[in-house]
């Protein structure tokens, strides 16, 4: 490999990883939005995945191939436990309840010494790479794309448009809601484990309210017409701050401005086309 290409890849390695990881997070948002639920627990699931994977690697010295799937178990169990009571809620009430859960977990990270408290956990080895991150993203996209085209996808779409009508037509609304929440937990938990193993440090403040909103904005910017749309949104929001480095002090201003313009002129997201129209 020529030196300049090697340098180029090394320089942007973290950005490339972040694109993959944020893509997975966008998908974890997509699966709940796709059934018409506004659940903001993704950052909390991500944090559980990140913390449990870091502890498994540092304390038990397990290989990453074991750590990655194992790290999705705590978020899934958590989603099961909270699923039954919270899924009775909907709309903004569900959003508030799930934000609350994220804050509860943040308080746990801060007050449990084994989790490093406010100092977080540092010295996590770099185990995740192109293969694990993008392999997972491609698999997740393929599965969600197939699901969206199947009968399940149609049921999900019906729920999104009108839940009562869907229930009347025989869609088991509760089962779909819980399924979506579990899928969301798996995706976010895996993304958390991957991110912990590329950036060597995790702290309790990385999984609170702000990242929850960032993950939501990936899906809002991209749209939820197909699983590819939220990933596109995540990529744009991840690349923008880096692409705008040249603006120095005005960087965040331009970043915000571009997002506002997109939301104003493309209210259904960047990829508003319905997937089935492409396929036909």
């Amino acid at each position, binding site marked *: 490999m020529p*030196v300049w290409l090697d*340098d*180029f890849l*090394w*320089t*942007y*390695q*973290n*950005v490339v990883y*972040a694109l993959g990881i944020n893509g997975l997070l966008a998908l974890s948002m997509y699966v709940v939005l796709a059934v018409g639920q506004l659940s903001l627990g993704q950052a909390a699931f991500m944090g559980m995945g990140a913390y449990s994977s870091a502890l498994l690697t540092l304390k038990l010295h397990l290989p990453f191939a074991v750590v990655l799937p194992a790290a999705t178990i705590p978020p899934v169990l958590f989603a099961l436990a909270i699923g039954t009571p919270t899924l009775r809620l909907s709309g903004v009430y569900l959003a508030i309840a799930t934000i609350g859960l994220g804050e509860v977990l*943040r308080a746990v990270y*801060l*007050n449990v010494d084994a989790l490093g*408290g*406010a*100092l*977080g956990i*540092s*010295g996590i080895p*770099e185990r995740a790479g192109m293969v694990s991150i993008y392999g997972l993203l491609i698999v997740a996209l393929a599965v969600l794309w197939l699901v969206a085209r199947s009968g399940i996808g149609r049921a999900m779409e019906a729920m999104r448009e009108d839940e009562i009508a869907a229930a009347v037509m025989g869609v088991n609304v509760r089962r779909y809601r819980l399924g979506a929440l579990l899928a969301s937990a798996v995706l976010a938990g895996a993304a958390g484990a991957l991110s912990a193993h590329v*950036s*060597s*440090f995790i*702290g*309790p*403040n*990385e999984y609170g309210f702000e990242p929850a909103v960032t993950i939501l904005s990936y899906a809002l910017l991209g749209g939820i017409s197909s699983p590819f749309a939220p990933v596109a949104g995540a990529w744009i929001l991840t690349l923008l*701050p*880096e692409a705008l*480095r040249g603006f*120095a*002090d005005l*960087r*965040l201003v331009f970043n915000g401005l571009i997002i506002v313009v997109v939301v104003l002129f493309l209210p259904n997201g960047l990829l508003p086309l319905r997937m089935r129209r492409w396929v036909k």
Partner: protein
Amino acid sequence: MKRTHFLAGAAALVASAALPSLAAAQVQVGAIEILTGPAAAYGIAIKAGLDLALAEVNAKGVLGGQKIVLTVEDSAGNKDQAINAARKLIGRDKAVIIIGPTLSNEMFAVGPVTNERKVPTVGTSTTAAGITEMGPYIFRTSLPESDVVPVTFKKAQARGVKTIALMYANDDAFSKSGFDVMKAAAEKLGLKILTIETFGSKDTDFAAQLTKIKALKPDAIGISALVEPVSGVVLQARQLGIGKETLLLGGNGANSPKLGDIAGAAADGMLVGSPWFIAKPDAVNTKFVADFKAKYGKDPDQFAAQAYDTMKIVAQAIDRAGAADSEKITAALGKTDFSGVMGPFKFTAGRDPASSEGVVVLEMRGGKFAIAQ
């Protein structure tokens, strides 16, 4: 070797274009600081200190007249952006040494990256424990709290303090780390810790904790938090009737002129340790303060002072290394023997500042800091 080839190639290209060989006559230095977002005040102060020192350094040049080119990248206080900035500075700008990043959390993320590429990295404001243990290329010029707090506590003990209550913000790495140091310092000096109370960085009501502390009647209260919550604690302590007989002790977070701005006369008598003080009378410091005021129209703070010294330490190390080469600069940095606005400076074998001689204990008087007697 790669780098010298690249430089030689660039020099040849420039020379063939019949221009003065500018590329060979510059040394690339990178800095990662918070220039946007809520914590931007720190990064902007540091950048100001770096720029001021850079102008002085470049008047003479290093390595026999070469100019240092300083590229400052914004991290916005975000660890991912800090990593991206480090990778860009090393991979694209070919920086031979990196200054920063601003926060300890960012350093924990950036350190492994720069250390892997063997590019020396010098923190100017990272005070948490464990920073320099990340690897042989990670340095810091900021005194860790473990060097500053014991000096403050010793001063308090000399004033007759025997019992102490500790308070800290438990949701912020800086405050937690400062508290660990306070606890260790109190134990080492044989001060009796009556209670340990916690609060959140964004809390505005500390009445429950302070009422409990008041009932215990400690000789002193040690507070580890950023300046805003510290000011809130101090104001409320006075409102609840905790008087001047209880000595208030602050960590590095309280070391900000904002303490006087927010808490005013309520903070009078509070002791705060500082690696630097604006009214230090030596010639180097008075010149720095005057130059800073002339250039930026405001007083420098501790972060600007630390950055000013660091830029000069880095420039000297490049000079002594004899080449713009990361490996040689790292070796030269280890042999630093410098005297700046913070006082005499050397690195320990563990790449931390060697001496806490420059630490002064400050006392709040009438809303302003003065040297404690």
